[in-house]
């Protein structure tokens, strides 16, 4: 090969290897676009993962709603809907790890890792597409809740704020789920592996009753449970800080601060673990 041709080729290789902020954003967009196209190609996934929480909403609103009373001049229905939303989006977030395990199994992750793309593009792209998917699912669930009688009590800003908190909590759980997906590697095992730690946390939180009304032994668990604060924040935003304080004895600002700390911790720890797993392959 002539020196000229060799030089030209090295120039091309150097150009392809170089990373700029614009390229990183472009890579993330390509990966996210690919994930969203997959979601779009399997609409059943969105439909069924929305129907299941819908049935739960109906159960809580029409059955428990008629026998449970929460006090504070608020319907149990309105109390429980933000919690069902947080829980549903948390479970929907688990799909992230399953998708990653499939990518690992099919060799797609090796393919991405052998390309000259930003190392962060795969995981960040996954987070971007998951956020959009979770946002869409929350909007569908909120619309369904409004149809069966749920009402916001804190204005439009509160409603928007609640949806943002629900999606943010979902994003935090996608990082946990992504780590499990990369660690467990088998798509069929990922589902139970993320479900088993999260399900008891949902039950031992303020989801279905205020912490003060939970059995005594459960209260300390509920008080350190991150899901309690995600739900209390969502609830405070949907129903107003006054209602939250009356039924749960916690200020919205306190709930939000604790939620924010937990969020940073969960996202920080599991992103670091997932990135490490992704890099070592």
């Amino acid at each position: 090969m002539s020196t000229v041709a060799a030089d030209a080729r090295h120039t091309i290789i150097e150009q392809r290897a170089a990373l700029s902020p614009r390229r990183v954003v472009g890579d993330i967009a390509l990966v996210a676009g690919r994930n969203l196209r997959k979601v779009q190609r399997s609409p059943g996934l969105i439909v069924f993962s929305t129907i299941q929480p819908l049935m739960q909403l109906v159960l809580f609103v029409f059955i428990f709603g008629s026998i449970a009373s929460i006090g504070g001049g608020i319907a149990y229905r309105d109390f429980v809907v933000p919690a069902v939303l947080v829980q549903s989006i948390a479970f929907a977030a688990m799909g992230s790890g399953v998708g990653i395990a499939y990518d690992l199994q099919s060799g797609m992750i090796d393919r991405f890792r052998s390309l000259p793309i930003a190392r962060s593009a795969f995981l960040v792209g996954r987070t971007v597409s998951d956020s959009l998917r979770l946002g869409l699912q929350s909007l569908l669930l909120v619309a369904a809740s409004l149809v069966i009688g749920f009402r916001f009590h804190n204005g439009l800003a509160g409603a928007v704020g609640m949806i943002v908190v629900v999606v943010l909590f979902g994003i935090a759980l996608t990082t946990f789920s992504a780590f499990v997906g990369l660690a467990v590697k088998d798509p069929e095992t990922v589902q139970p592996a993320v479900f088993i730690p999260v399900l008891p946390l949902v039950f031992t939180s303020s989801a279905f009753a205020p912490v003060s009304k939970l059995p005594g032994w459960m209260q300390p668990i509920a008080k350190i449970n991150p899901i309690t604060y995600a739900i209390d924040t969502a609830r405070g935003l949907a129903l107003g800080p006054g209602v939250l304080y009356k039924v749960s004895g916690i200020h919205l600002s306190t709930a939000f601060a604790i939620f924010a700390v937990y969020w940073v911790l969960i996202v920080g720890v599991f992103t670091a673990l997932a990135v490490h797993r992704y890099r070592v392959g």
Partner: protein
Amino acid sequence: MSESGVVVDGLVKRFGSFVALHGVSFVVPEGMVVGLLGPNGAGKTTAIRILSTLLAPDGGRASVAGYDVVTQPQQVRAAIGLTGQFAAVDEDLTGRENLVLVGRLTRLSKEFAQERAAELLDAFDLSDAADRVVRGYSGGMRRRLDLAASLIASPAVLFLDEPTTGLDPRSRLRLWEVIGRLRDEGKTIVLTTQYMEEADQLAEQISVIDGGRIIAEGTADQLKTKVGGDVLDLRVHERAEASAAAALLADTFGISTAEVTIDDELGSVLIPVTAGASALVDAVRALDGAGLRVADLGLRRPSLDDVFLSLTGHLAEEPRPDAPEPRPRRGRPRI
């Protein structure tokens, strides 16, 4: 050594207490197809994963297209194409979408990626299926698409890790055809295989690897010669003349009659020779001169299976019971 191509020098890799590579060295000159031939667990995939920056080595050095795999991984990634043991294609995307995605992630413009994708789909006989979702593709189609994805940005070096493992014979032949075409175009290719026939067909240079060590190197012919020379396989017309022919040829090649195998019933004689094709000519002359009539005469070379057996004492295509499979992808089902 050569600026381009692949240079591997004393590569070591351990998985826990299992040593997958014990200081492996080999060179792939620019424009050459080199086959890494060895059984399961020999370290082939580990070597490819290190060369394609998917795995960090524990010792030794390696460079691809002039770039160090440890210190310049990003340049290496920009220079290579990788087709692994499992077709790494997205089942939910169409063939075309898969190629365009990989092309754009390798920095091709959208237009150029689309143009290249169309070219490759055509060249690999996938045009009809181009806009169908990959889920419905056959195994052979997936491998061809995977190979097309590795080629979309015209890489300087192409790694093919057991490209035909698990394919039916027809799909295998088809893929050989495609790889043969790339070889003829002068692509630099590192190919791993556990099939003798595949190495013989595709590789210009073969490194035999076993238990994490390179145990022999050379062209297929050189390796075959290493095992011993060729065998002259003679069938005489009159069975009764077999021993006469055997004595004559032993004399011609200066070997003792004890080295010649005679089958009186078939009238066949097997004579080990070192001179290759010229031995054939000598044999014909001698037999003709003595007035012995020949029914069939051929020169048989030892197969690569013979080579592997004589080098390692076991066959390449049988997994060795004493060597655990290194599992770089832990927990992953091997199909």
